[in-house]
């Protein structure tokens, strides 16, 4: 062992370590153990993180956005030795005094090409990378990814009918322009018996075919017509494919038009 009690070692080309086959034995020692070089430090912490190795790369220039520091990881490939396998870069998106923002880039290779940034973990919104994990939250949030294979919807992906509430394609969601929090109710009832001395009414009936078949008998509500034809509409003989629209009018031979209906079903 060479003991150097103080001062600097300068002008050294290489430092070669023999294999000591054991970790460093004391604080602030650097030792080779097999294929590992271990830098050992020791303190008295119990529940904090220590950063016992630092890389510093300052500059004689003027720092600007994108300045950073990284670490290169190399191994051996079929035709390269050393071969770049990956890199971790920490860079700044803002180097302003008191406004520094930094991000972590993971650089990987594709098809033998040079290392390229594929993932960025940033503290502020970035731009233009394969994946960007960022946040702009004002409090701690928990995001739980589903335990299943699928595609996470984006602000463009969710605007697809097939993705809305699991509805199949070509089903459009009906909105409510008037108020929030409203809902639809439905029911059936037995109307009171018709009188026996009322004025006679004239009845028109037409079988209406639904544009699309229902899977079970729907509820059908008849609306009025657009014309001034003193007529009332009703429905009967409702099936999954058709219903009969009954038009009651006090005017003999009147020809009501544009009667409307709504059906609610599955």
């Amino acid at each position: 062992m060479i003991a150097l009690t103080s001062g600097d070692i300068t002008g050294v080309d290489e430092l070669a370590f023999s294999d000591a086959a054991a970790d460093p034995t004391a604080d602030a020692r650097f030792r080779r153990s097999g294929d590992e070089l271990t830098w050992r430090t020791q303190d008295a912490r119990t529940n904090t993180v220590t950063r016992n190795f630092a890389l510093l790369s300052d500059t004689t220039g003027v720092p600007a956005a994108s300045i950073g520091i990284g670490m290169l990881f190399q191994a051996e490939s079929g035709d390269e030795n050393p071969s770049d396998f990956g890199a971790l870069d920490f860079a700044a998106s803002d180097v302003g005094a008191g406004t520094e923002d930094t991000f972590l880039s993971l650089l990987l290779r594709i098809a033998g090409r040079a290392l390229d940034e594929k993932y960025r973990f940033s503290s502020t919104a970035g731009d233009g990378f394969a994946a960007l994990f960022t946040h702009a939250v004002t409090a701690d949030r928990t995001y739980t990814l589903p335990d299943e294979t699928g595609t996470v919807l984006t602000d463009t992906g969710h605007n697809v009918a097939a993705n809305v509430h699991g509805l199949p394609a070509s089903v459009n969601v009906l909105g409510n322009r008037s108020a929030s929090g409203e809902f639809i109710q439905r029911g059936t009832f037995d109307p009171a018996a018709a009188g026996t001395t009322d004025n006679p009414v004239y009845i028109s009936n037409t079988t209406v075919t639904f544009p699309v078949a229902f899977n079970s008998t729907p509820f059908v509500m008849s609306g009025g017509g657009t014309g001034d034809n003193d007529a009332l509409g009703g429905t009967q003989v409702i099936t999954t494919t058709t219903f009969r629209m009954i038009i009651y009018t006090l005017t003999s031979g009147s020809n009501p038009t544009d009667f409307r209906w709504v059906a609610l079903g599955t």
Partner: protein
Amino acid sequence: MMKSELHQGLIYAGDSPLASTITVEQTGPMQLTVRAGSFTTTGQARLRPYVPADHDPIIVQGKAEKLADGTRVRLWIQKANGTPLESAKTYALAANQIITVTSDPLAAVTYTIDLITDDLVAAVLVKRKLVEVEKYGPPPAGWHKIHELLFEFILPPGTTDLAGLTMYVLTVKPGFPPGTGPADWQTQTG
């Protein structure tokens, strides 16, 4: 003239099992022919997302079936005893049916043609009545209606040729009607 339009005879099956190959044609001045074919009813069902653990057992029991998209299941609505209220059924009309239409010299009459069944075979039921005078009779005892094939049309007094009349017939197409995508949202169609 035979027609089939949305709301009047033309229907898309949507996600239901509805299907029909039975057609009605005018084959003479006062003659209609119902062509042999098959008709599949919708049954009574609810569609739900397919959950294998929940649905596979009842699919085996015939109480449900998977839709073609593989992501949903058709659950037959059950009666109190747990059996399907009405599952889809396919009826076959074995042979063409030729129908002679007759007008009344003095009064208008209406015609409707239904597909009916006694739950063994399918047949055609022609219904005719004098307007505002008669009512259609019920199907023969033991038979019930499956679906209209030709919707009610009025035959004016003394009609000798159907060619000038508009008669709406049932036409079932698979899938959904066109025009339900975003492009159609821009246009008020009704």
